């Protein structure tokens, strides 16, 4: 499969009075046509910033993409003019935000918000865009779509609003949808519905998905490939199966152990990762996870481990990847 999005050594930094925050620090990954890629990590590890960088939506000042390349379907995203990037946004790469309660404009009707994108990007007339809006709402499972068009966001529940957001994202038939924690603000029962819907639509329409999440359950069920991020870097990359069955970084292992699982004995206690993520303004010389790592050795504090191959399509950045592989799994 051909890669539609290739990100190479992307670096996004925020220049604040407290110092330079290296929010995204040299990440490289690609997304293939129709594929679902998950970006996993704790709050503040740079996963949202990496996604916003793709659409050049980083608020500048204080933030800026300082290095790397983003290639999307032959376009050099970082070199596009403002007018050109606006033609990509919403049209070819759409975004679904975390907060459905505040991602819709309260003073515009659902119909207007859907048709505006269609009229703007596809030059549709009023009737055509209205018909398409009805079709889209039906597609994302909203009942009585014709009536919903005249309603305002406050008439809808959170799950419904997220469906509307997904309909908006799908409206111009983009090649890629970036979903930034699409289910975090929703009830657990609704979360599964929304994720099923997104997976179903992406498979049916051949849209690639980048799902940003901190929920490994989501990853296991819905992602083809996974990027685990820590302190602005990708520290492990592989297929969902590889990440689950052969975690090769202590952080990934920690994440897996901190999620309750049905295939483990009930009395086993959850094993959270101790400590807090590091301050991104002053990272040390070594591995960023080293202060919290129970497998750390002296070298970890001195040199940053590079991403190295574990197996086919599976890479990890840990000095003790090989000699600790077995121990790590034993510990789990």
């Amino acid at each position, binding site marked *: 499969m051909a890669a539609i999005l290739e990100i190479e050594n992307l670096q996004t930094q925020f220049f604040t009075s407290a110092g330079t925050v290296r929010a995204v620090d040299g990440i490289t990954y690609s997304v293939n046509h129709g594929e679902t890629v998950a970006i996993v990590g704790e709050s503040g590890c740079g996963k949202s910033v990496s996604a916003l960088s793709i659409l050049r939506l980083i608020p500048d000042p204080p933030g800026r993409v300082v290095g790397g390349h983003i290639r999307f379907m032959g376009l050099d995203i970082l070199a596009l003019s403002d007018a050109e990037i606006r033609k990509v946004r919403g049209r070819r790469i759409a975004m679904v935000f975390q907060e459905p309660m505040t991602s819709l*404009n309260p003073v515009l009707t659902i119909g207007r918000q859907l048709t505006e994108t269609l009229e703007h*990007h596809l030059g549709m007339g009023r009737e055509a865009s209205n018909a398409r809006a009805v079709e889209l709402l039906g597609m994302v499972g909203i009942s009585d779509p014709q009536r919903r068009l005249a309603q305002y966001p406050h008439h809808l529940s959170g799950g419904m609003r997220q469906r509307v957001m997904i309909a908006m994202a799908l409206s111009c038939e983009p090649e890629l949808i970036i979903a930034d924690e699409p289910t975090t603000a929703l009830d657990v029962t609704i979360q599964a519905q929304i994720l099923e819907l997104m997976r179903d639509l992406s498979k049916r329409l051949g849209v690639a998905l980048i799902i940003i999440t901190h929920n490994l359950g989501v990853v296991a069920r819905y992602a083809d490939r996974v990027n685990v991020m820590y302190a602005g870097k990708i520290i492990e990359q592989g297929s969902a199966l590889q990440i689950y069955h052969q975690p090769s970084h202590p952080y990934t292992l920690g994440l897996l152990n901190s999620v309750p699982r049905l295939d483990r004995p009930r009395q086993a206690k959850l094993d959270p990762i101790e400590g807090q993520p590091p301050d991104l303004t002053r990272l040390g010389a070594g591995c960023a996870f080293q202060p919290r790592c129970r497998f750390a050795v002296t070298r970890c504090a001195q040199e940053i481990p590079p991403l190295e191959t574990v197996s086919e399509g599976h890479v990890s950045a840990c000095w003790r990847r090989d000699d600790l592989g077995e121990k790590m799994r034993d510990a789990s």
Partner: protein
Amino acid sequence: MTVSDVRTDLGAEEVVERTPWPAAILGLIARYPLGAAGALVVVAMIFAAVFADVIAPYDPEANAYEYMFTAPGGQYWLGADDFGRDIFSRIIYGARTALFVGFVAAFVGATGGLVLGVASAYFGGWFDLIIQRVMDVIMAFPLIILALAVISVLGPGIDKVIIAITIPFIPQCARVVRSSALAIREIPYIDAARACGFSHARIILRHMVPNVMAPFLIMITAFVGQAILLEATLSYLGLGVQEPVPAWGLMLKSGAEEYAESAPWIPIFPGIAISLAVFGFNLFGDALRDALDPKLRAQ
């Protein structure tokens, strides 16, 4: 908006939820009696301005020297002035002048402030800094001084009066709107609009402006009252509307200087008209502010 052509099949439940018009208006009057009084003055004034030709018994600009200084009574309800013109007719026509100046100045000034304020909040950074400093400079002048300065550059006349009154309104509105827009700027739907690929102008005008309508409407009603007062002031100083056009400030001027003791009805009635109009718009504006502020409405 596309609302009109898709609204046809609204479900029955929405219709039931709506309060019928007359009941809603009575409810508002009960809750804001002062505002209702203000609204009454505003409506009466608009009525007078629109139907001035029908209401006014005399031509406001026609001199009748044989009736100079006629006291209020059966023939001239509010008396006649030093040219024998009917004061009642001049006040009715004066409402036209006052409202025209008031509405145009308030609307143009507030709209200018609205766009500048929202754009300033949206772009932030150096753009915001420059706009706000320019606004600070304009606001540093007292309203009347600034208006006088503009008039002295442009010369008198009703169109120049409107410009002179509009300019000081722009920063006042921009300041208030900017603070509302700053909060709106941070709500994700603005980022979502950017992620949809909309241009800055579209985001400002279609997505942010409708969300700051409440402070904007309040500013407009407050501005109309202020503009009427300012127009009267400028006319009184001889820098505004020129004779023989009927304008309240002008009537006050000619009356107050010479006839305050000998024919007090000449200055008193235009004075009352000015006070009543400004009072009415202010009461209405205050009630509107309360009605549009969800925090106050809950009490």
